[in-house]
C-alpha cells in the first residue's frame, strides 16, 4: 500500500500531451464543415422548421383562439429569416455555384448554366461533388476514430474492435452501408442534388418564372414554372412524354423524366421524397426501438407482473390488423391537428412505431432476459447499484446490437408501408412528395413510354430496403461471428415486410 498518488490522465490531458493528430483532425473537420456551411444550415432549418410548425399546429389545436396568430406569425417570421441566413451562407457545392438551369440559343450556346455546360453535365458534376463530399466527410470521421484509437485510447483492445473488424470485412454489409449512405445523402442534400428545387418544382410552382428560348418567336421568353410543367408532363404518348435522361421543351434536364400532370421533375420529387421517407422511417423506428428497449429491459429485470402486462398489451396490438388500423387512424385523424403535422407524416410515424414495437420487443426479450440472468447484473445489485443504472450500464450494451439489427431491418418495412399507404391515398398528403404517390400516379402508364413514373420509385424502394437489410445482416454477423454462414433468420431475422 504505497501512498503515492498515481496520476491518470483524462482524455483532455492525453490530447494536450500529444496534440498533433487531434489538431490535424479538428482542422480538417472545420474545413469540411466550412465548405458546406449553407447546406448544413439548410438542413438544420428544415428540421427545426418542421418541428416549429408542428409546434405551432399543436399550439393552435390546444390553445386555439387569438393567441395563435401571433405565435404562428413569430414562428413563420423566424423561419423566414433563418432560411435567408442559411441561403446567405457560403457553399462550395451548391446550386448557385454550379447552376444547371438555363436555355440554349440556336447557336448551340447555353446561357445561365455553369461555365456554359450542358445542363446535364452541370447537374452530374454537382451530384458527383456532393457525393464526393459526403464520402470524404465520412472518411474523415473514420480517420478521427482511428486517430483516437491509435493515439489517445487507453485500452489497447476493446470488444468493439473485433466487431468493427468483422463489419469491415463483410462485403454484403458494406454494400448495405453504401446504399444507406447514398439514400441518407439524397435526403440530406435534396435541395442541392435536385435539378430543380422543392419550392419551384412542387410547393410554389406559380411563384417562379423560368427563361427559355422560344424558337417560334425567335426570342428568349419567360414562363411560369406551373405553365412549363403542364406542358412538359409525361402522359404516356410519344409527344406528351419526358422520359429518362431527357430535356423538355423548356431546356430543362430531367434525369428521371417528369411526372404526370402537372409534370414535375421526378428526380426532385424523389429526392425530397427521400426526406419524408427517412423522417417517417426513423421516427417510427425510433419510437418502436425506444419502447422495445425500455420495456424489454424493464420486463427482463423485474419479470413477473411487468412482463405479463407487456405481453398482454403487445398481444393486443399484434392481434389487430395493422394495415387497417393505420388506414383507419389516417382517416380519423385527417382533420385533427395530429394528422396535419408534416401532412400526416408524424401521425404515420407514431402509428408505425406503435405497430412495430410489439414485434421488436419480442425479438429483444430473449436477449434481454438472457443478459438479465448474467451474474454481473446480480453483482451490481449486490453493491447497491440503482436499477436504472444497472439496466443502462449492464444490460443495454448487450441489446444495443439487436436494436440496430432490428431497427435497420424494419425501417425498410416502414418505408414500404408508408409508400403503400400513400399509394392507396391514406398516408402523406400532397404537396409533400412521397414515393408511393409517384408510383400511384404512374400506375396507369406502366405499359406506355411513361413507365418511368412508377418503375423508378418502385425500384428505388427495393434498393433502399435491400440496403437497410444488408446493413442489418452485416451488423448481425459483426456482433455474433457464430451466425455467419448459417441461417439464423429464425432468431434474428425481422426482415422488412409491408405494414
Amino acid at each position: 500500500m504505497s501512498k503515492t498518488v498515481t496520476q491518470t490522465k483524462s482524455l483532455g490531458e492525453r490530447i494536450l500531451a500529444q496534440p498533433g493528430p487531434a489538431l490535424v483532425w479538428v482542422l480538417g473537420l472545420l474545413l469540411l464543415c466550412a465548405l458546406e456551411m449553407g447546406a448544413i444550415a439548410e438542413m438544420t432549418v428544415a428540421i427545426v422548421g418542421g418541428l416549429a410548425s408542428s409546434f405551432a399546429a399543436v399550439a393552435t389545436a390546444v390553445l386555439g383562439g387569438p393567441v395563435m396568430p401571433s405565435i404562428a406569425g413569430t414562428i413563420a417570421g423566424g423561419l423566414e429569416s433563418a432560411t435567408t441566413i442559411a441561403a446567405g451562407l457560403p457553399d462550395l457545392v451548391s446550386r448557385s455555384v454550379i447552376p444547371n438551369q438555363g436555355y440554349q440559343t440556336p447557336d448551340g450556346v447555353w446561357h445561365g448554366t455553369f461555365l456554359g455546360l450542358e445542363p446535364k453535365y452541370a447537374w452530374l458534376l454537382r451530384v458527383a461533388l456532393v457525393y464526393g463530399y459526403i464520402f470524404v466527410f465520412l472518411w474523415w470521421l473514420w480517420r478521427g476514430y482511428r486517430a483516437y484509437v491509435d493515439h489517445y485510447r487507453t485500452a489497447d483492445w476493446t470488444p468493439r474492435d473485433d466487431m468493427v473488424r468483422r463489419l469491415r470485412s463483410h462485403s454484403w454489409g458494406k454494400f448495405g452501408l453504401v446504399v444507406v449512405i447514398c439514400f441518407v445523402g439524397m435526403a440530406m442534400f435534396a435541395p442541392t442534388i435536385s435539378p430543380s428545387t422543392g419550392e419551384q418544382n412542387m410547393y410554389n410552382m406559380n411563384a417562379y418564372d423560368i427563361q427559355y428560348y422560344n424558337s417560334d418567336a425567335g426570342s428568349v421568353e419567360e414562363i411560369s414554372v406551373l405553365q412549363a410543367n403542364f406542358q412538359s408532363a409525361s402522359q404516356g404518348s410519344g409527344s406528351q412524354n419526358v422520359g429518362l435522361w431527357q430535356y423538355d421543351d423548356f431546356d430543362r434536364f430531367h434525369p428521371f423524366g417528369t411526372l404526370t400532370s402537372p409534370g414535375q421533375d421526378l428526380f426532385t420529387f424523389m429526392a425530397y421524397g427521400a426526406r419524408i421517407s427517412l423522417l417517417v422511417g426513423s421516427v417510427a423506428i425510433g419510437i418502436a426501438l425506444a419502447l422495445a428497449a425500455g420495456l424489454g429491459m424493464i420486463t427482463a429485470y423485474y419479470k413477473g407482473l411487468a412482463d405479463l402486462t407487456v405481453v398482454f398489451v403487445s398481444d393486443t396490438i399484434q392481434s389487430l390488423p395493422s394495415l387497417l388500423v393505420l388506414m383507419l387512424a389516417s382517416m380519423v385523424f385527417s382533420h385533427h391537428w395530429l394528422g396535419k403535422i408534416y401532412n400526416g407524416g408524424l401521425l404515420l410515424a407514431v402509428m408505425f412505431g406503435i405497430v412495430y414495437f410489439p414485434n421488436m420487443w419480442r425479438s429483444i426479450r430473449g436477449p434481454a432476459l438472457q443478459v438479465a440472468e448474467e451474474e454481473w447484473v446480480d453483482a451490481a445489485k449486490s453493491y447497491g447499484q440503482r436499477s436504472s443504472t444497472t439496466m443502462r450500464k449492464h444490460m443495454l450494451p448487450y441489446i444495443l446490437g439487436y436494436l440496430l439489427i432490428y431497427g435497420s431491418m424494419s425501417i425498410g418495412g416502414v418505408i414500404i408501408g408508408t409508400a403503400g399507404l400513400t399509394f392507396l391515398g391514406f398516408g402523406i398528403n400532397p404537396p409533400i412528395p412521397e414515393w408511393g404517390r409517384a408510383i400511384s400516379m404512374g400506375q396507369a402508364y406502366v405499359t406506355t413510354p411513361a413507365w418511368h413514373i412508377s418503375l423508378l420509385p418502385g425500384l428505388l424502394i427495393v434498393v433502399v430496403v435491400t440496403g437497410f437489410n444488408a446493413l442489418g445482416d452485416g451488423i448481425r454477423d459483426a456482433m455474433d461471428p457464430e451466425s455467419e454462414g448459417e441461417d439464423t433468420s429464425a432468431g434474428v431475422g425481422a426482415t422488412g415486410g409491408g405494414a
Partner: protein
Amino acid sequence: MSELLEEDSPTRTDDGPLVEVNGLKTYYDTGGLFGSNPVKAVDGVDFAIDRGETLGLVGESGSGKTTLGRTLVQLESATEGEVLFDGTDVTTLSGSDLKNWRREAQIVFQDPESSLNHRMTIGEIIREPLDVHGWPNFSVAVNDPDDRSVSVSGDGTRAEPNDAADITVELAGAAPTIAVRDALAMTADSVDVSVSEQSSSVSVSVSVAVSKDQLRRARVRELLETVGLREEHYYRYPHQFSGGQRQRVGIARSLALEPEFVVLDEPVSALDVSVQAKILNLLDDLQSEFGLTYLFIAHDLSVVRHICDRVAVMYLGHIMEIGETEELFQNPENPYTYSLLSAIPEPDPTADRERVTLRGTPPSPRDPPSGCPFSTRCPVKIRPKEFRDVDEHTWESVETLREILREREDREMGVRDHAKALLGLETGFEDFVDVAEEVFTRNGSLDAKGVETAERTDAARIDGALDDVDPVAREPLKEAIELVLADKETQAHELLIETFESDCGEQSPEHHTVSDSGRTSYCHRHRTEFDDTAVAFDDLLSSAE
C-alpha cells in the same frame, strides 16, 4: 490496515457472532400468478458465523445452498426469519439503509465468465462499487481530549462511532494533528483542517486537495495488486484474461468497499484444477490480511475440508449437520453427512469406511417430504417396530415402491416413465405388474424362478414377485399393488405410508447437539431409543455383505 483491525478485533469478538441466522426461509414462486407450490429453497435454517471465521456450506445442487448465500447478502428476499448482521436484522432494511449495509457484505460469484461485464474494462468493473457508494466519503473522526460536541463541515462527514474513519483529527496539543487512513492514497498534507473551538463545542472544517476520482483510481490499482494482478491490467477487458485472473478481478471488486463479510459462492468450481489452489490461497491470505469473515459455499467436500473452520451440510433447504470441520469429517453423525462422506475417496487408506450409494435423486423442493427431508433416500431410515428385522431387500423394495408412487403424485406423468427412470431401465414395462415384478424380485425378473411364461397371469406374477419379500410385509404390499391396478394410486400410497412409516417421515427431527464442541445434527437417530448413525450403517453394510 492490518494493525487497525487487530486493534479492533478483540473488542469486536466479544460482541457475539457477526452473522446470526434464525429460522430463515426463502421460497420462490416461479409458477406464475396462480399460487402454485412455491419452491422451498431454504426451509428454516439457524446458524451463526463468528468474526474472522470461515463457515463452509456444502450440499448437492438443488440443496438451496446458493439461495441461502444469496439471501445472506440480500440478493434474494427472505420469506421468513431473520438475518442478524452485527445485531441488526438486515432482511428488514430498505432504501439507503440497505445500500449502506451492502458495503459490509459482498459476494464472489461462481462463474467469472458471467460475473464480469465484458464491455467494461477491469478498472471500471472494480471501480463501480466505489462510484455507487461515493467512496471515499472522507469520514472524519475527531479525538477531543475535552470530549466536546463536534461538528464537521466541508468535504468531510462525521464518522460513525464504530467505523474506521478516513481522516482522524487529534485535537490535543497546540495544532491539530491529522492522520489519513492507509486505504486512501493520499497523505495528510493533502488535507486542510481548520478548527474553531468553543467551550462546549468544536467545529472542524475539512478540505481535501485530492479528487475522489484520483483516489478511486489509486484504490483500484491497489486492489489489483492485492489480488495478484498488475496495474496495467486496468484498461484491459475481461476477454483478455484467463478464468483464474477473472476470478481475481471478481474478488477485487468484492473487496473494493472493504466489507467485513464475504459470501464465496463456489468460487473455484468453474476453474482449472491447477489454479484452484492458487485462488484458495489468495482467499486465505486476504482473510488474514483484512480480517474477513467468509461463508464458503461448495459442493466439493475436499475443498471445504482445507479452508473452513466449520461446515454446514445442507439438504433440501435444511441444515442437516453443522460443526467443526475436522470433527465432522472424522466422525459424521448425520446419516446424510455420512453418506456424502462415504462417497468421496478416503484419503486415509487405513480408515475402512464403506461406500454408501444413495438411491434416486433428491425430491423436488416444491414438494419436500414430510418429516425428515432425507427420509425418502435415507439408507438408515428408522423402521416401524414390526419391520425392524425384515431383510434389506424387502425394505429396499418397499421404499422403492413408495418413491415411485410419491413421484407419481408429484408430477402428473406416466407411472411407467418414472419407474423406468428410477430403476435406470431403458425398455420394459407394459404395465404396473411389470413394475412390481421389477421391484420385488431379487434379480429383477421372474425368469430365473421357473414361472412359465404361459402361466404368467397378473395374479401369478404378483405372487411370484412377492415371494422374495419377507412374509411380514407381503400382505400390505399385495393389497397396495391391487389398489394401484384398480387405479387407486392415492389409496395405495396412503396404505403404504400407514403401514411402513416411522417418525422419520412423520415428524421433523430436532437439531440434536452431538458433540462437546456444539455440533448439531438434524436426525431422529440421536434420540435415545434408536441406534446411532454409525451403528445403523455398520448393521446395514454388514447385512449387505
